[in-house]
């Protein structure tokens, strides 16, 4: 079987350059919107050692002239979709498990063109004219070789049958898909730095040295990628957006629009039968500045009200100061089999130890009986304290209590204790009194640091 690989390496960077051609050749770094860490960097930055995950600050220190851009996932997905749609002209049987990377079967297609090279050229020509993106294509006998060749093609090439190993021979071992660092290190120690050198080793020797798990890489280096073509459906991302004709400068109005959008999103999720595990809100303001906030949803949900609440919470976190012109909600849903899961909430006061033990217990239960065995339970909240009017004696103890429009003299203060807590967050300072009133009842009163009195119904 012959396989064609269509590649658009560093698709997000290419998309950004397409959006703003002045960025071409610039030391560009794309940042994740919510934590300002690099997700992709242009060649000059990669050469300078910038890696995905680096913080904006550290990149700035190393490469002061870096141009930073916030990544816009919607645009990249759109571009990916365009590429895929354009490729559908040649085949509907497309495998794509990575942004900007596509495989199609080329055995039959090649016959309709004069040669494989002609096919590859035709594909790139079509894609480039349809998307204006510098895609490359190559054809080979297996996916890995086709992928490596596509990365090097300019713009198209074909690796003749049986020449896969010789094509790969000069490529570094780092070209292998996700090679374990330990394996790379050991191979390097043995002086094996290219795929040709790896391929030359006897298969059994590699198995003996590294174990069967690593033998797969030896096969790849020899141009024997046996992985079949598998059109892969990535976990869907459901997105809906709304462009506002009149930018919203009132928070309430933005909230209303967002609630509608969340409702729409919930419908979409329901139609597809998915539940969202995360929700992201993106806004564009009048100055074309993009703002993003995201949050994971535990338990996953497709429930309208929860999505609405979460969306509003995200909007609050964004705290827009400039009128909003676009709203975009993105849900990252689960597979269908994970539907109907809900969150557990066992303890009001959690500690690291109890949480760990709980997780262990849940994990054992799930392993033994399956996921559905766990049922939720909600904690019953304590009754809320109710405010009460108290007048005090000169020593600060409560003297009379006004309850349900009746005044009760306090007969006896049995106990007085003090609670001072949570000084690091929301300080609580209360003076508690256990008192008897004239009708014989024993009550627990407390006085907040503000001087307000309450009856505590929870303590008996």
């Amino acid at each position: 079987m012959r396989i064609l690989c269509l590649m658009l390496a560093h698709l997000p960077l290419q998309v950004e350059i397409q959006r703003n051609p002045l960025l071409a050749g610039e030391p560009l770094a794309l940042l994740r919107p919510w934590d300002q860490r690099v997700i992709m960097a242009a060649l000059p930055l990669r050469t300078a050692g910038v890696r995905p995950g680096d913080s904006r600050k550290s990149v700035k220190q190393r490469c002061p002239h870096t141009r930073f851009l916030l990544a816009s996932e919607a645009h990249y997905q759109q571009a990916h979709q365009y590429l895929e749609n354009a490729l559908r002209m040649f085949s509907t049987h497309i495998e794509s498990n990575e942004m900007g990377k596509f495989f199609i079967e080329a055995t039959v297609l090649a016959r309709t063109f004069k040669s494989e090279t002609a096919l590859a050229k035709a594909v790139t020509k079509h894609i480039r004219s349809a998307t204006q993106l510098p895609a490359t294509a190559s054809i080979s006998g297996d996916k890995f070789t086709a992928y490596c060749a596509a990365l090097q093609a300019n713009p198209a090439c074909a690796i003749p049958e049986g020449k896969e190993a010789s094509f790969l021979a000069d490529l570094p071992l780092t070209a292998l898909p996700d090679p374990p660092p330990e394996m790379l290190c050991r191979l390097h120690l043995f002086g094996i730095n290219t795929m040709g050198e790896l391929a030359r080793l006897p298969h059994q020797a590699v198995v003996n040295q590294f174990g069967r798990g690593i033998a797969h890489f030896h096969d790849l280096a020899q141009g024997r990628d046996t992985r079949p073509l598998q059109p892969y459906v990535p976990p869907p991302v459901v997105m809906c957006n709304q462009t506002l004709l009149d930018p919203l400068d009132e928070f309430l109005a933005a909230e209303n629009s967002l609630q509608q959008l969340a409702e729409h999103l919930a419908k979409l999720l329901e139609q597809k039968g998915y539940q969202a595990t995360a929700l992201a809100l993106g806004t564009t303001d009048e100055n074309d500045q993009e703002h993003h906030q995201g949050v994971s949803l535990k338990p996953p949900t497709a429930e309208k009200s929860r999505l609405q609440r979460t969306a509003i919470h995200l909007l609050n976190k964004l705290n827009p100061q400039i009128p909003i012109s676009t709203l975009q909600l993105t849900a990252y849903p689960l597979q269908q089999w994970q539907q109907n899961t809900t969150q557990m909430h066992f303890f009001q006061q959690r500690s690291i130890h109890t949480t760990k033990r709980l997780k262990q217990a849940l994990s054992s239960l799930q392993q033994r009986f399956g996921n559905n065995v766990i049922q939720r339970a909600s904690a019953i909240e304590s009754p809320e304290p109710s405010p009460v009017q108290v007048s005090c004696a000169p020593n600060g103890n409560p003297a009379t209590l006004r309850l349900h429009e009746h005044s009760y003299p306090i007969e006896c203060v049995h106990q007085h204790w003090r609670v001072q807590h949570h000084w690091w967050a929301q300080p609580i300072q209360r003076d508690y009194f256990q008192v008897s009133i004239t009708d014989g009842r024993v009550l627990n009163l407390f006085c907040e640091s503000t001087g307000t009195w309450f009856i505590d119904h929870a303590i008996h």
Partner: protein
Amino acid sequence: MPYIELHAHSYFSLLDGVPTPEALIAQAAAWDMPALALSDHNGLYGMPRFWKAAQQAGIKAIVGCELTLAESGGHLTLLAENQHGYSNMCRLITSAHSKGKKGIAILPEKTLAEHTSGLIALSGCRRGLIAQSLLTHDHQRAERTAARYADMFSRESFFLELQHHYEHNDTHLNTGLEQLGQRMGIPIIATGNVHYLTPADAHIHDILTCIRNRLPLQHSDGRLRSNHEYYFRSPQKMEALFATWPQALLNTLAVAERCQAHPPIGPQVLPQIQRQPSMSADTHLRTLCFTTLDHKTNIDVSKYKRTLEHELKLIAEQHLANYFLLVWDLMRFARERGILCQGRGSAANSLVSYLLGITPIDPLSAGLVFERFLSHERPNPPDIDIDCASDRREEVIQYIYNKYGHDHMAMACTIVTFRARSALRDVGFVLGFDERLLKRISAEIEDLSLSTLPKSEILSATLGDVPYSPHWQQLLQLAARIEGFPRHLGIHNGGIVISARPLATQIPVEPATMEARTVVQFDKDSLETMGWVKLDLLGLRMLGAIVDACALIDPQPCLDSLTFDDPNVFDMLCRSETIGIFQLESRAQTSLIPRFQPRSFSDLTIQVALIRPGPLQANMVHPYLQRRDKHEPVTYLHTLLEPALHETLGVIIFQEQILKIARDLAGFTPGEGELLRRALSNKCAEEQLQAFRSRFLTGALAQGVNTVIAEKAFEQLKAFGGYAFSKAHAAAFAVITYWSAWLRCHHPAQFFAGLLSQQPMGFYPAHVVLSDARRAGVHFLPVDLRYSQAGSTLQYGSVRLGLQSIRGIGTQQIRLLLQERRQAPFHSLSELLRRTEIPRPAAESLILAGALDYLQQDGNRRQLLWELTNAYRIARVPPSLELPDNDTRVQLTPMTADQSLTTELVATGVSTQRHPADLYIKVFVSAGAIPATQLYKLRDGQPVTVGGMVIARQRPPTAHGICFLALEDSSGILNAVVYPDVYNKHRTGCRADFALIHGRIQIKHGAAHVVAHEVLAVSSNPQCS
């Protein structure tokens, strides 16, 4: 109504108390409390400080502790009524610690019952067994427990403890306790269970509690105290709170009156050294000293006898003869076993020490002052520091253990306190900060104090505006508050405490992490406060290196016969060839040598003492050198100072000179002079210093010295501050300096072999030592399993690296390898593995270090590594069985020279063939870097580029943020100075392993260094290894 607090915790309750012992005393004094008890958890760590502070404040210190009981986990408060009770308390604490893991104390009730006499027990806090029983309404158990304790301690010495912290059910509990007391005839007593001084400190206590439990605050529910009421209450407040139970308050006075115990005041009774029965320790010491003196020639005998009589008299008066004899015995043992040991520090001021062979310096000929070591006025006992070859120190310690018994000897403890880094890390964790962020900022703050951190540029350089957020400010403030708080107990490097009486009856003893090693609960300062003598036995690798070097010389030289005047040795030192030489190899000393040019032992003594914070901060170094170079005249503030400062050209360099100045200018006795020196070196004693100042000025006036001059002299002494070596110490060090220099000069191969056997040691890493040795003409052979011994040895005049130099191979494995090799050499990899069964990482290290190169014809390490898998397979089957070789043959290309160099460096830390900087030679050459040795050929101020391996990096606190880098290439070493602005811009470069520096050459007094403008990192990981 008067009240005395009998239950107070200091920060020595280790993460369960906030106030210092001194703060507790100060507060008690402010309230006119006549007495105060310290009752820390399971220890008396803070007792000496508490006792001293109480003495100074005129308050009675009551010795107490709060013990944790094994059966219930409950607490019981104990107070020592008399010395017998104190001994029992020590026994109980020792016993509690001996039962649990290190740092955890639990006392079985059975043990408690055996040691109750002389102790007063209070029933403890809410966690006490009786309080717990009452809170759970188990009145029968409460009665049973109370009856049991009352029987144990007697009804007069057991009290039911009433506390009131506005806790839920406090009133019920106290009423219950009172009723229980009435039923059973047990008195009640009120206590405050103090954990902090004021309610505002409760936050700190919460933080400490969370650190103790390794919990962030947000998950701390149930662990923290429910309110902020555990503060030190005034008697008036206690009176109001305990109005219902006035007897409980009155009983505090009665108990305080009864408690008369105090911590053990030294010096302790030391074990007797074996001697004739009729001979006292003083006579024995006298006999030993005079016998040695009789054998000395070319000395003024009468002068020596006079001095000796004076010293012996003072030693006898202070009951220290046994102490000297004990050290003498120790030194005798070490000498018999060939263990190189020598005394250092102030002990070298003593003629007795010299005559007993403890120190190598004749104090009379060196002009030393005995009172620096021992005097009537000195309130603290002296201690003798002994340097011992570090690899044989354990033998000496074991000798002491065996001779005096485990019950009579223990190490001094160290109280490990929160430093800036640990405080920030722990408080940050508790407040819920990201651990990675905390790690990063901790790595950045280096030696800064947290009080200065908010103003430092480091925070903003690392974190931008983040540290100015309220959350960060809270972190910095809280962390600064706990800086200096005790965190846990450690073991002192060498402080040994010996006593004729079992130690556990005098100071509580705890097990240390090291098996069969114990520590006393007093650290060195506490021991000093209590007047206990200790012995400091410190491991010094240089002594081990000297012994190793001498063992390789045939015939072995007698170091004691060296006369410290070999011109060749001093010529070598003047050429700055000092790497590996004790005390002279540092960057600062190397820079000093071109100007200093030492030519005598006296010069060496001064040089060793010159690079110290005292002379540096007091700006004494430059004037001394100017005078030495005759660029400025030698002047004295007053002619009376000439005798004291003549030797050091009118500049103060040694501690003893403080004593002499005080004596000559202000008429101090030597003992008073020593007190002045101690006050000068103690920054906190400003009041004390003022008293000395007045005394100094008055004394000077009486001597006819102008007040202005006297004030100036005192200011000079103050600036000097005492942060310097005593001359005795410097001279003792100079002996080792000379020995090492002599060995380097005359037996370089043996000297460097000795140094490499003792790595890591000294100022530089092993590869720097090796590179320098190569420049000195020493040839090295790589580690080879056929020939290498454990340490480095000589083979055909070259140094053969030892197996110890290979990382990842332990002492046991080396012993096994050598043992097997003695039986028969190893002919193959599988044979090696079969006979030694060494683990794979060790085998790989051997291969990468080149130790097995001989097993391959072309020394192909890659091939050996590849074959290792198969060799293990073959090694696992009996040799009689033939295993089919299922490994398809693979022929790998040998490593390149660079790869071999890298793997050798990784495996051994050294390279015998090339310099590590050669890995980047192309980078350096293309950048226009010049070799280190060419630096001296340039003009002052000329722009220059240099590159090499960063071998030393220093930012001393005295340098105001300047970073000093030492770079080495194959030609030599150069120094670079990086000013703070450049350092802040080029932090990465300054911290890299290999660096390229653009800057300007600066030549001063014959020493050249580069003032950096730009420091660039050169990748430190050229090969994946």
